[in-house]
C-alpha cells in the first residue's frame, strides 16, 4: 500500500493553483501532484505514491550506497 515508484520528472506546471508535473516511468508518462516537492526540477528522479511526488531521490546517496555494497563484494573476494 505504501508502494512508491521511482520515475524521472520531465516537466512541472501549475494547473488551477496546484503544482503538477509529468513523470516518466521507463516510457510510461503520468501526471503527478508536485505540491510536496516544490524544489524538484526536470531531470530529477522522484518517488511517486498515489499520484503524488513524495521525495526526490538523492543520486549521491544512491551512488554511495551502491559503492559501499561493491566494496563489500570486493572485500569478500579478496578474503576468499
Amino acid at each position, binding site marked *: *500500500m*505504501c*508502494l*512508491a515508484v*521511482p520515475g*524521472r520528472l520531465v516537466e512541472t506546471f501549475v494547473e*488551477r*493553483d*496546484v503544482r503538477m508535473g509529468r513523470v516518466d*516511468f*521507463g516510457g510510461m508518462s503520468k501526471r503527478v*501532484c508536485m*505540491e*510536496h*516537492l*516544490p524544489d524538484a526540477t526536470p531531470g530529477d*528522479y522522484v*518517488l511517486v*505514491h*498515489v*499520484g*503524488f511526488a*513524495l*521525495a526526490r*531521490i*538523492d*543520486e549521491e*546517496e*544512491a551512488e*554511495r*550506497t*551502491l559503492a559501499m*555494497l*561493491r566494496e*563489500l*563484494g570486493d572485500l*569478500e573476494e579478496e578474503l576468499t
Partner: protein
Amino acid sequence: MKHVDELRDRATVQTLVRALHSETKHDWTVMEVCGGQTHAIVRYGLDEMLPRGLSLLHGPGCPVCVTSAEVIDRAHAIASEPDVVFCSFGDMLRVPGTRGDLLRLKAEGRDIRIVYSPLDAVRLAEKHPEKRVVFFAIGFETTAPANAMAVRIGKQRGLANFSILAAHVLVPPMLTSILESPGNRVQGFLGPGHVCTVMGTREYGPITRRYGVPIAVAGFEPVDLLHGLLACVRQLEKGDAHVEVPYSRAVSEDGNAAARATIDDVFEVCDRQWRGIGWIPKSGLRLRWELRDFDAERVFDVGAVTAEENPDCISGKVLKGLAKPHDCPHFGKRCTPETPLGATMVSSEGACAAYMTYRRLPILQEAHV
C-alpha cells in the same frame, strides 16, 4: 529502469546474503514493518536465503489489513446512501466487513469506483455536482499527505459535495504496542521506508533507546531489504540500538517538511481501532474539527456501527509477530484470499495472503500413506 534494476542485481544480493551468513553469530528475530516489504521478501524468497538463526517476523504495516471491520461497515452504509459515488483504492474493495465487501455492493448496483489517486475523487466531485462523492481515506503516513491535499483542494474549490471517510493509522504507536506485548519476540526492526520518506526518522530514536531495539529504515527492493537486515544484524551483534538509514537515497532525518505540514493542516491525532489488534491510543489521524464539512462520518449520519471479529482468526498475533501464518489451523483451508477469516488474509500485502500467493503451503505432518 534506474533505481530499480541495480537493486535486484543477483551478484549484489549474493554478496549481502554471504555477509549475513558470516556476520550472524547469534539467533536474532527481526520484524519488517511494511506489508510491501513482506510481499517482496516472500516474493523473492529472501527469508529462505538467510542464516538459520536469523528469523523474520512480518509486521502490521498493511493499512488495508488493519482497517477495522467497523470502518468498513461504515463505508458500506455510506456507499448505500442515495446519490453517493464512493471512491476507494482498489485493494479495499475486496475486504469484508460484517456485511460483506464493497465489491458485492458494487455488483448490486451502487456507484463504487476504484481510483488511483485521491485527486481523481476530487475531479469526480467537480464533474458531478449533483452527486455526493466520498473518498475512503486509508493508509499510513505515506498516504496521509495525498489524502490531506485532496481535502485542501476540495476546500479551496468550494466543493460542497466532496468528503472523505478517514481511517488513517500511524506506525510508531504500533511499534510501541508490539514491543510492550507480553511474549514479544521482536529484537530489531526493518523500518518503514516510505513512511519515513514523509515523516523522517526522529520519532524512531526514542523507541530504539527505550526498548533497546535497532531500527534500520529499509527500502522495498531485494538489495534494499538485505542491506537493511545486515545493518540490523550488525547492530544486534554489537549490542547497539539506534536508528540507521540504509535507504538513504529516499529518507532523511527530517523527512518531507511540506508533506508533513499538509498533514498537520488537515488532520489531528486520534485513538484508532486496528483490525485484529484492537484500540491503540493516539495511533490514527482524523480530520480537524474546522474541516468537519469534509468528514463523511459527520456528513452522513449512519449511526453507531459495531462489528465483531471472527474469533477463530489469529491475525492479531500474526500482526504483532507472535505467530506466523502456518501456525493457524485454518490457513489455506477455511481461510484463503477468496474467503478470508481476518486481517492478514484480506489484502495481498497481508502476511497470510503473501504466503498463499507464493505457495508457502505447509506439508501436512500426518499424511496418510
